């Protein structure tokens, strides 16, 4: 390769690199926009879900036949069946692999005057 082609080659490479950088900046901007919308959607989804659970619970309360459990315990049971802990040890965290939890069961069904 003679010196001249070498120089041309460098010119070309420089252009290419600048192009790449432009693309990179563009992609990064798009990505941050996407992340932003994603977070917004997630939040909205969460709120909607909460609303949905609320509505479902209200319906369940109305149509419920099991009167052995008090309303508040039934709420807890509902949350538990949704896959979350209701015991004071893990409260609010997800039940991994839907494994049962003895503490939650005690909270829901246990006798309180022990």
């Amino acid at each position, binding site marked *: 390769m003679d010196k001249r082609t070498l120089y041309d080659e460098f010119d070309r490479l420089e252009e290419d690199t600048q192009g790449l950088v432009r693309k990179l900046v563009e992609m990064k901007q798009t990505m941050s926009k996407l992340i932003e919308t994603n977070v917004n959607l997630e939040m909205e989804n969460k709120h909607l879900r909460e609303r949905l659970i609320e509505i479902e619970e209200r319906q369940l309360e109305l149509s419920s036949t099991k009167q052995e459990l008090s309303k508040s315990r039934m709420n807890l049971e509902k949350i538990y*069946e949704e896959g979350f802990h209701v015991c004071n*040890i893990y409260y609010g965290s997800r039940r991994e692999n839907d*494994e049962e*939890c*003895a*503490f939650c*069961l*005690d909270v829901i*069904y246990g006798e309180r005057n022990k």
Partner: protein
Amino acid sequence: MKFTVNRNAFLAELATVQRAISSKTTIPILTGVKIVLSADGLSLTGSNADISIETFLSIEDEKAELTIEKNGAIVLQARFFNEIIRKLPETTLTMEVLENNQVHIISGKAAFTVNGLDADSYPHLPVIDEKNQLKLPVRVLNKIINETTFAVSLHESRPILTGVHCILSSAKLLAVATDSHRLSQRIIPVEQAMEDFDVVIPGKSLLELSRSFKDEEELVEISIMENQVLFKTKNMYFYSRLLEGNYPDTNRLIPDNFNTEIEFKVTELLAAIERASLLSHEGRNNIVKLSISSESVVLYGNSPEIGNVEEDLSYKNVKGDPLDISFNPDYMKAALKAFGEGEVVVKFISPIRPFTLEPTESDATFIQLITPVRTN
């Protein structure tokens, strides 16, 4: 420091303290083993953030063939030191500390010179008040450990549940462990009157402790301090950190009214559970179902994509209401293995409430609890 010792005896001591030595530690000197030579014998120490083990090789131990020429102390990198000792040619070895913490190790024609660290910079082990002690035979302690530690939680999300809750009060020692899915509790009567305690010992420490014991007939002395527990045998000091925080109240988890009771031979039930779990392990849900009526007791395993299994169980005795209950067979297996031989009575309330397992000749000293799986 200069001494000569039997290589195998020394290796055995080294292996014990190495249980406590981890290569991944933030304190570099803890990757080493501390060797201290006094007029009575040789002591080795290994430690990590959680446990520390100190062993003592007495000069009176004939097998160890220990001869001491000069007292002293040194810290050596545990990993390669062990390798060196293991590969030495003769049955005895001689170690001598030279200047600048260099150590000369000689066995037969082989001679190593390795760099050590100053023993004074090794952290001090906690000082524990030895007046307040609980004495137990090693065999009994091992039994308690085997009966409870399998039930500790392996998740760090609630660190307190990774420990075994030990309570000493009114001449009884209670040990309980739970990962919230199952629970195992053992109570033993104890004679010594020491101050009551209520501590949570990491399950991992207890397993290491159990593996470190050499002689089942020995006595172990247990002392408790603010955040440490010491298990002391004739030739070993085993320190463990205690877990901080309040252990949840497990007493209320154990029911006392039941609707269905059934008695099994442990070995027979275990074998049946193992058969049924062959399929449940392959399937997506790891569940087996037990169907109890006054005429028969049947165990089902059903994995839609693989196949199903059904077994008429032989049982000793059944009473109470009929019941269908599903559960994870692995918890049942672990529970039954802790019973060993003998007979077990399984007591149920309902398909959604935890059920218990106890030895038939029950004096309420050993009880296990398993939560069923809700299916609908």
